[in-house]
């Protein structure tokens, strides 16, 4: 199976920007991603430990502002869409298949542990930053929020600062 080439990045950027623009036009706010995971965590906690969820501000506040749980959560539904869209694109371009992307110098196990660890950090960071690369940086920059630019610079700045330490994982 021959992989189809990736889209021209500038074209992809313009299309992505237009999708973001339409989203803001219709809903009054931008795209997001990490909010979906938060919504799942809050739902799970509400089911598993309802007392804890009711007493802890983090969960109770979220439940109060997002009634109906994940199935009625805008960001959760959006991220379900992201998965569907990604799958359709992979299907169309012959990129479906189980695979682990990693640098040549590390094994699969290391890569998977690093992916989980990196994801955990991102999950924590996104809560601090009130959004991730999509919700805080990209959407924040589009609406010209100072916080959006600040978060973007902190994400990429730290990435570069730590790149040397973690170079073995990628190059």
């Amino acid at each position, binding site marked *: 199976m021959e992989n189809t080439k990736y889209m021209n990045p500038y074209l992809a950027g313009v299309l992505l920007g237009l999708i973001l623009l339409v989203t803001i036009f*219709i809903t009054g706010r931008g795209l997001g991603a990490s909010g979906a995971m938060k919504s799942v965590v809050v739902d799970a906690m509400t089911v598993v430990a309802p007392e804890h969820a009711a007493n802890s*501000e983090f969960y109770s506040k979220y439940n109060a502002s997002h009634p109906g749980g994940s199935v*009625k959560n805008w960001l959760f539904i959006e991220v379900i869409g992201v998965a569907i869209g*990604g799958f359709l694109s992979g299907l169309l371009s012959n990129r479906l298949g189980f695979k682990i992307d990693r640098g040549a110098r590390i094994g699969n196990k290391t890569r998977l542990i690093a992916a989980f660890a990196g994801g955990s950090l991102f*999950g*924590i960071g996104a809560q601090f*930053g009130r959004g991730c690369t999509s919700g805080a940086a990209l959407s924040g920059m589009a*609406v010209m929020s100072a*916080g959006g630019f600040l978060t973007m610079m902190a994400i990429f700045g730290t990435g570069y600062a730590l790149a040397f330490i973690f170079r073995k994982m990628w190059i």
Partner: protein
Amino acid sequence: MISPLVPNFINSEISLVVALIVGIAFGFILEQAGFSSSKRLAGLFYGYDFVVLRVFFTAAATAMTGLILLSYFGVINLGLIYINPTFIYSALIGGAIMGAGFIIGGFCPGTSVCAAAIGKLDALLFVAGVTFGALIFGEIYPFIKEILTAGSLGDLMVYDALGMSRGFFAFVLVAFAITAFVITSYIENRVNGKAASLLSFKPGKSKAIIGFALIIAFALIFMPDKKSRALTNLSEMNPEMLKSEIEMIDSDELAMWLISECRDIHVIDVRNEENFKRNNVPGAVNIPFNSLSEAEWRTELSKTDRTNIFYGIDSEEALKAAMLSKILGDNSEAYALNGGFDDFKTTILDIALVDASKIPADKYKFRKNANVKLAEIRKNSAAKPKPKKKEQKISGGC
């Protein structure tokens, strides 16, 4: 119909359908752009692949430019959209933790979902990690709560923070992005061992698009927002033109409307606060002319079942205020009071000082009667709490 469409034009069920559709489009483009490969994403930090930078900056610049254009044409109310609030410490701490997560995990949350969908197992673990991270945060939340809200700067706009005009900042950003595209192409070629010169930047078919982007970006500098455009239009109108656009009422009519309660009227005093406090039309609210164009008043002045009556120091100020409200797209019917506040004061409020023989008896009787009723209205309205002036913003949160 002015954007945003939620919650006034679209209900929450349809909004979820919109979520699914834009999500699919978002995921599709992310995958097509190559964001489903952690190796490509991490390339940004090692100089072998800058695809993230290209897509990310192009997308942010496109959406930003689009928003400025839509606001210029008055189809979107930028005052109503969600502006990510700025909290210095949590933005920096969160950004730094996310940066570490990016270089270690090779994804960000959105791209990991998209990559997991085509079978990338590392992405699947990243998604699990993000979920786990949110749980950790939920559990440590009581201990770090203070950091989250420290250094709050509210809805600070980046161009205000930098002391630039909005249009100029937009231009600088687009110019910066294009410069970055050229330089990173050069770096990319060097790192990948290709012959490199700054001229080897090949945006392919997008050359025309980039040229177009630059032209639009340049135009943004000179593009005033809707507010300043409205004020310019207004300054070009003379009193005669204003009178042909705005209907005027006199003090007797205003008193009649106030006491009869047959129609819902909203009386707006556009004089300064000092004048307003000294004396005013009973039941009136004070929106000084200088702040009339601010976004926070739009909802209050746009109720279709209510009639706005503007009054000022004189007829002209009232006419200008009513016209400005009309230009800014307020939906309420607007009238201007002829003669200014002083006319209303001498005619109605100070009727006791008037020599009754100088005006027709029925008029005098009406004004006397109105005066008494208005005193009651003033008493009642003083007891009522002040109207909420801030309109509800779209709440966000990722």
